[in-house]
């Protein structure tokens, strides 16, 4: 892999390229949020971003740290109660694309973000479902974005938080897509400079490789510039000190 960009940048850019202009995206925090906003700032200016906190048609200038930062409300077309996001938008079938990440994924794209170990006595208690179970089943199309390792791409989940069927898993090494007949996720594309064996080594099940294995073009200069600008703006914004003015410094 070239030294000109990081695997995280490549993963974000690969995810962003999947988004068609005008699509309605249910956006999660972190990499999905970066990918969606990168797409909006490059090839898909009319992408509609919905964050589960209740902001519809958001156009943030910096990436939110939380799913409900003020930036999201201030740049939204509409700020609505959270229940409506899940009923009127997601469950009613108005969301084209959902993004999910997880601590574990299996070969069918089922996801675990709940526990490592037994549910009743977990070795590691993870944050849990959030919006994932219904995004997974109700968005028209689901992309999973996860760094690949044999520890996270597992033969058997400890807990099924979301029932899978993503149309792609975009990793830091390449892209997996479901085989039509078996629905098993197979390697369909690699980033430049990544070898198949590297991907197989970072997968806990015997990863199969599609007959036609594509290579994904590296980031364009524009993609990198826009993404890095976005991250730089975000870092600056999040470093701002927050200070409360107390009236007369009185006791409340």
């Amino acid at each position, binding site marked *: 892999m070239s030294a000109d960009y990081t695997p995280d940048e490549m993963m974000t850019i690969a995810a962003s390229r999947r988004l068609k202009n005008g699509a309605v995206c249910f956006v999660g925090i972190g990499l999905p949020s970066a990918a969606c906003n990168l797409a909006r700032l490059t090839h898909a200016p009319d992408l509609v971003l919905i964050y589960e906190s209740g902001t519809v048609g958001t156009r943030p200038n910096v990436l939110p740290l939380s799913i409900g930062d003020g930036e999201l409300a201030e740049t939204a077309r509409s700020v609505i109660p959270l*229940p409506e996001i899940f009923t009127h938008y997601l469950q009613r079938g108005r969301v084209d694309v959902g993004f999910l990440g997880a601590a574990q994924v299996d070969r069918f794209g089922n996801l675990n973000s709940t526990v490592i170990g037994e*549910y009743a006595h977990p070795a590691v208690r993870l944050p849990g479902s959030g919006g994932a179970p*219904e995004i997974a089943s109700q968005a028209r199309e689901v992309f999973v974005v996860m760094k690949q390792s044999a520890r996270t791409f597992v033969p058997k989940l400890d807990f099924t938080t979301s029932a899978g069927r993503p149309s792609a898993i975009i990793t830091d090494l390449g892209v997996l897509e479901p085989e039509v007949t078996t629905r098993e996720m197979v390697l369909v594309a690699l980033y430049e400079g990544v070898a198949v064996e590297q991907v197989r080594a970072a997968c806990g099940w015997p990863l199969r490789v599609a007959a036609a294995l594509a290579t994904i073009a590296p980031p364009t200069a524009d993609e990198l510039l826009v993404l890095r600008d976005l991250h730089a703006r975000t870092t600056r914004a999040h470093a701002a000190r*927050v200070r409360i003015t107390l009236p007369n410094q009185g006791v409340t």
Partner: protein
Amino acid sequence: MSTQVMPLRDVIARHVQDGMTVALEGFTHLIPFAAGHEIIRQRRRDLTLVRMTPDLIYDQMIGMGCAKALTFSWGGNPGVGSLHRLRDAIEHAWPHALAIDEHSHAGMAVRYSAGASGLPFGVLRGYTGTDLPAANPARISQVTCPFTGEVLTALPAITPDVTVLHAQAADREGNVLLRGIVGASREAAMAARTLVVTVERIVDSIDAPMNAFVIPGWQVAAIAEVPGGAYPSYALGHYARDNAFYLAWDEIARSRDTFLAWMERHVLGTADHAGFLRSVGATE
């Protein structure tokens, strides 16, 4: 029926009792931190805490031993990682065991909506193919649509004994205005048996635009004016989310000792929220 304006100390003393089911809502925005800290100061015990996203405030309340049970849908430090005190309670029963009632966001929204609507249960097309129903059989069931025969997921209503919200403003009649991201605050408020609210400012008129999110005063049992009451969460139009605090919390909460020392100094060791804000250096 009329709202009483009083110090936060009195709001909590009067309305939040040991053993109650309490929802401090606000989705990332307007999280009632001041109220949560006051519950800690008053050493409430055996609470069943309800929140979609426990966030730092429930991490603190759980770590300080206020809770016997938690109803929730996403228990992380948003954008940062784990809630270490929540994990310690579930993984190691520290400071004591914590029963959990776990759902998805969609499920929690449906449960609050059912509670707000006076219905015993709510319905969604969710949880399908997941291990959630097996993990929580008492509170995840099914109903069959009498018209189509479709089998859907049914969840019991949530009706907190007390819901606590933080808002930007209230007027002297007790009418409360919330602006910005409201999450499930509306549903949590309408589901509650008793609603209490902290606000940035009590004003002569809230000047609510038409169709704004206003809670009429006669629904609000008590109001306390607490500037900065959502810090380190935020109040749109007043102050931003202190993302640096959320990042720093990861280290503070990671060990029991640093956590307890921090809580002792900044929460138990301060008399009220203004004291807390000064103590953590969050005032001008």
